[in-house]
């Protein structure tokens, strides 16, 4: 299986190449991709240099253009796509069907990958995008068990990529307006979720309170580390109880399902984390590369120190494991 690695900066990009990525994905410094964070992403020049460097090392570059084109400003997305193609991107990762249509029409030779944000979670949805736009690969949303992934792989005419490590969306990707309901900014439109611009931490007696858009997302007691207030991973009051109503502040780690994913026919494993620093990227990529090469019984040892890097130091197999539902 290929290892697809994140890069939010040119420095992280070089680390990912060094550490053993088969492909690195990145985006432009604007709202055309779903990690539109301050200080992150690539200028046109930086992308061209990254592509050339990667090619010299036999590594591919995927450019994420995976937000939905804002009505009236479609040109921003069309131009970004033109520039990604011109820079030599080995694939563009798209979510908006009209942008897929543009690429299929304008650049029929360009390899088209479907972003997780397109939310194609079954054989007919995947087939629609393969038949209509010539998609060569599709990134599956994190709503499927390994068995369901295998079932789709058997029936579709394209490669499948799945998330293996890093952040975990609890909601079906590309279909979530929780962030914009509270802050006015969403993953689909602005490329952000629970944006830092709307985050506030305040002390309340011995507690540290994390807020998003003026709403309490979590309350941490003395000595409890105060995490980032990602909306769906907060503690709330529901059904007469206080708790993590949707999901704990955990991250995704499906390395224990490696053989099952391979047997299921998965082509590529994706590491989430374009917002992460270069040291994180280097460690995660080299560990996962070592684990992919190691025999099964040596894998846990190769992955042991990865757990320390995980958000909140706790991980889950998420929807890949049926019990998670």
């Amino acid at each position, binding site marked *: 299986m290929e290892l697809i690695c994140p890069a939010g900066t040119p420095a992280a990009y070089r680390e990912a190449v060094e550490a053993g990525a088969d492909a690195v994905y990145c985006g432009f410094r604007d709202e055309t991709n779903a990690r539109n964070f301050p200080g992150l992403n690539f200028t046109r020049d930086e992308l061209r240099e990254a592509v050339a460097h990667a090619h010299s090392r036999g590594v591919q570059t995927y450019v994420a253009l995976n937000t939905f084109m804002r009505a009236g400003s479609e040109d921003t997305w069309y131009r970004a796509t033109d520039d990604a193609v011109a820079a030599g991107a080995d694939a563009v990762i798209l979510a908006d069907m009209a942008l897929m249509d543009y690429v299929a029409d304008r650049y029929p030779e360009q390899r088209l990958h479907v972003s997780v944000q397109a939310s194609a*979670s079954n054989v007919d949805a995947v087939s629609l995008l393969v038949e209509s736009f010539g998609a060569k690969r599709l990134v599956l949303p994190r*709503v499927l068990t390994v068995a369901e992934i295998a079932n789709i792989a058997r029936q579709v005419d394209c490669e499948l990529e799945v998330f293996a490590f890093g952040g975990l969306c609890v909601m079906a990707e590309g*279909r979530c307006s929780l962030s914009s309901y509270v802050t006015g900014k969403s993953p689909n439109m602005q490329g952000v979720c629970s944006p830092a611009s709307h985050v506030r931490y305040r002390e309340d007696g011995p507690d540290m309170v994390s807020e998003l858009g003026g709403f309490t997302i979590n309350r941490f007691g003395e000595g409890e580390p105060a995490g980032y207030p990602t909306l769906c991973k907060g503690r709330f009051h529901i*059904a007469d109880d206080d708790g993590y109503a949707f999901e704990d502040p955990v991250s995704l780690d499906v390395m224990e399902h490696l053989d099952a994913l391979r047997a299921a026919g998965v082509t590529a494993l994706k590491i989430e984390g374009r917002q992460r620093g270069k040291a994180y990227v280097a460690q995660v990529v080299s560990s996962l590369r070592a684990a992919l090469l190691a025999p099964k019984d040596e894998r846990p040892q190769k992955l042991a120190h990865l757990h320390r890097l995980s958000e909140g130091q706790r991980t889950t197999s998420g929807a890949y494991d049926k019990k998670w539902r």
Partner: protein
Amino acid sequence: MADLSALKITIGPIPYLWSGEKWRDFYYRIAESGHVDAVTLGEVVCSKRDHFTRPFLPQVVERLTASGKSVALASLALVTLDREVAQTRRLAAEAPLAEANDLSALRLLAGKPHLVGPFVNVYNGATAKLLARRGATRICLGPELPASSIASIVAGAPDIDYEIIAFGRLPLAISARCAHARAKGHTKDNCQFVCGDEPDGLDVDTLDGQPFLTVNGVQTMSRHCQVLLNDLPPLADMGVTHLRLSPQDCDMVAVAAIYADVRDGRMNPDEGTTRLKAIYPAAPFANGFLHGVAGMDWVAA
């Protein structure tokens, strides 16, 4: 100025799990409403609920059709299981008019007239045009679009109809995991249909007691109820043709009458809003998405 009276009133699918009899009786009352032009119905949120209402579906469709309503059957929003794929295929093959709420249904309905529901991402006119080319005759736009986007989408594909959610809690997210079952100590696979205990959704408050969200099975909805009574003239001007009233556990026939009265100038929007509050006191009102701010905000006229 567009003709306000041309705005049609539709009833969207019931998002919650109601008993089969309550579900049937709801539509029998809707059938008698002179203000409702069209109804889209069927289980959109969770395929496990389907058997509660399926036995009543034929007679409900017959009653609505006989009373002159245009009826469409909605497809499931999140399709992952083989049985859900099969169910979507059956719907696409058999329904006289279907509303696609997933890309799978779009594939299956291509080439014949169909509706597109709010769970398919349509953010620009180019996408609307593409869907129209494939057979879409009406698109119900998703909740987070601002007015500027709606106007641009309609302008990009002006030959089809557009519907927006003008009343009701908004669908914000859907998950493979059931937060509703989880809150009551169950998993999705052994949920015991506990979402049926809350016919208007389960409240989620912050730890500081702020009303925040609503859980409805695997779906997360807004705590606020969208109310666009103040915005009907600009919506008609930009080419919106249908107002979707999304059923809440309240007198929806009376809600439809208020929207019709405000639309036709028999009632001013302020009075309409006051009356709506009496009919549906359970939720604060919001219209923020349309005005380009946080969806839960209320922007005064």
